[in-house]
């Protein structure tokens, strides 16, 4: 276990090696939050509601996605495809280390850094902007929000790894990732809450795993789902977690059979 802790710790230190790079990255994150925040602030009425959301609820949703982004969507495992294509995987195959856990530890190191800075930045934004914010006081809902966020973290890790494994079959791993990120921006609910979409589209999206990365945990936090809907949602996301893990195991074994250590 200690070795994985060291991997996570090293990732933390790696991120601070190029400090200007890191600073620029954080500025970008703040800018992305502000862009969406001001957009919604402009279209939302101060009183009443729009698309079923009051101003505090929707702005909480937007700021919440910023925090959840750093917990769920921050990752290092995007480099798995390059590892395979450049032959670096061979090195890991010889080490007494689980390849999946290695990347999971790297992801956790990355997430820890991102969460730390995201909380700091959100506090600063709160002090400056004084946004109307919805504070959930129901402890059960907060607990369920935490559970669904952890499931989301696992789902994203598996999806990310699965995309990286395309590297076993093709050197072209960045183009599928570009599409994945584009789809995610829309289907995960980072741009807007998904339930403002037409009902048939929303129903289809509810069956996909993307919905459970940002939208579902935040809806739990906002208290807009019944306990029954939460149980159904958590069940579907757990199903995806298991299904993606099984699929990943199969793809990994088949991929290893094709692996030629190209690039060494």
């Amino acid at each position, binding site marked *: 276990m200690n070795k994985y802790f060291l991997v996570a710790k090293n990732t933390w230190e790696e991120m601070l090696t190029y400090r200007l790079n890191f600073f620029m*990255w954080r500025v970008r994150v703040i800018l992305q939050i502000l862009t969406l925040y001001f957009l919604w602030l402009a279209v939302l009425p101060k009183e009443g509601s729009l698309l079923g959301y009051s101003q505090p609820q929707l702005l909480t949703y937007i700021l919440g996605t910023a925090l959840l982004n750093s917990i769920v969507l921050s990752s290092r495992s995007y480099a798995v495809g390059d590892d395979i294509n450049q032959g670096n995987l061979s090195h890991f195959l010889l080490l007494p280390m689980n390849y999946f856990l290695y990347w999971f530890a790297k992801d956790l190191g990355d997430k820890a850094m991102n969460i730390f800075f995201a909380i700091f930045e959100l506090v600063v934004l709160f002090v400056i902007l004084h946004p109307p914010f919805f504070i959930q006081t129901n402890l059960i809902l907060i607990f369920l929000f935490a559970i669904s966020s952890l499931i989301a973290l696992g789902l994203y890790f598996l999806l990310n790894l699965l995309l990286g494994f395309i590297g076993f079959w093709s050197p072209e791993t960045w183009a599928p990732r570009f599409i994945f990120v584009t789809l995610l*921006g829309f289907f995960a609910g980072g741009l807007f809450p998904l339930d403002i979409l037409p009902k048939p589209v929303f129903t289809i999206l509810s069956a996909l795993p993307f919905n459970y990365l940002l939208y579902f945990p935040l809806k739990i936090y906002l208290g807009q789902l019944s306990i029954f809907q939460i149980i159904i949602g958590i069940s579907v996301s757990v199903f995806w977690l298991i299904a993606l893990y099984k699929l990943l195991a199969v793809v990994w074994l088949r991929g290893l059979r094709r692996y030629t250590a190209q690039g060494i």
Partner: protein
Amino acid sequence: MKKYISIWLKLSFLSFQIALASRFGAALFLFGKVIRFGFFLIFLFILEAKTKTIAGFSLWQIIFFFATFNLIDSLTQFFLREVYRFRSYVVSGSFDLILTKPISPLYRSLFGGSDILDIPMLILSLGFMFVAASNLPSVSVFNIFLFFILFINAMVIACAFHILVLSIGILTTEVDNTIMLYRDITQMGRLPVDIYKAPVDSIITFIIPIGIMMTFPAKAFMGILSPGFVLLAICIGVIFLFVSIKLWNFALTKYSSASS
């Protein structure tokens, strides 16, 4: 001038060949760009359906703003894609080879490889601009003229931004996040900057001239931009370009020829 056009054609041709070496990858990238455009458009339609106007602008006005943004953004990426590759030249010392060539290193660093994958996005943006414009109230020839003037001004500002990125690249070896930071800032211009509250709207219009780049041309087209702002926009564009070239010249004196 002729020499530079011929160099651009040659480098762009080579760049196209590289981009099309993996046709599957190129197709996926293109598909990604189109769905990103489509998704934001869907978002605007949904928003407009519920609110009727967005910050006082009608749906077709908003689409015209969005399409103009995409046209400027895609055209900038088409011409200035080489900037995204600049960091590798600096950290590997390959920039030495560019400096010793008998052409302007700034020209080579800016226009050294156009991106063919942006051409379909240019066509798509133009198409949407045309459709949106045909749904707007009558537009005068003078407004169209002002649009072209401010469109050229927007390209000048975009060029100045890229020169700033190159200069920072030489001074700090950091390019990737700086150029993406520029991209993120310009994203604020997808919609008219008037939607942002004070002082954000003023900051992104006059200090970081995103509003002048992205919003002013469309506003001039619709006839809702005063002539004073047109003159101010041109002045800011020229000053911005002048300052960025000064910074580039300064940065060149600090280049340390790393790794060579």
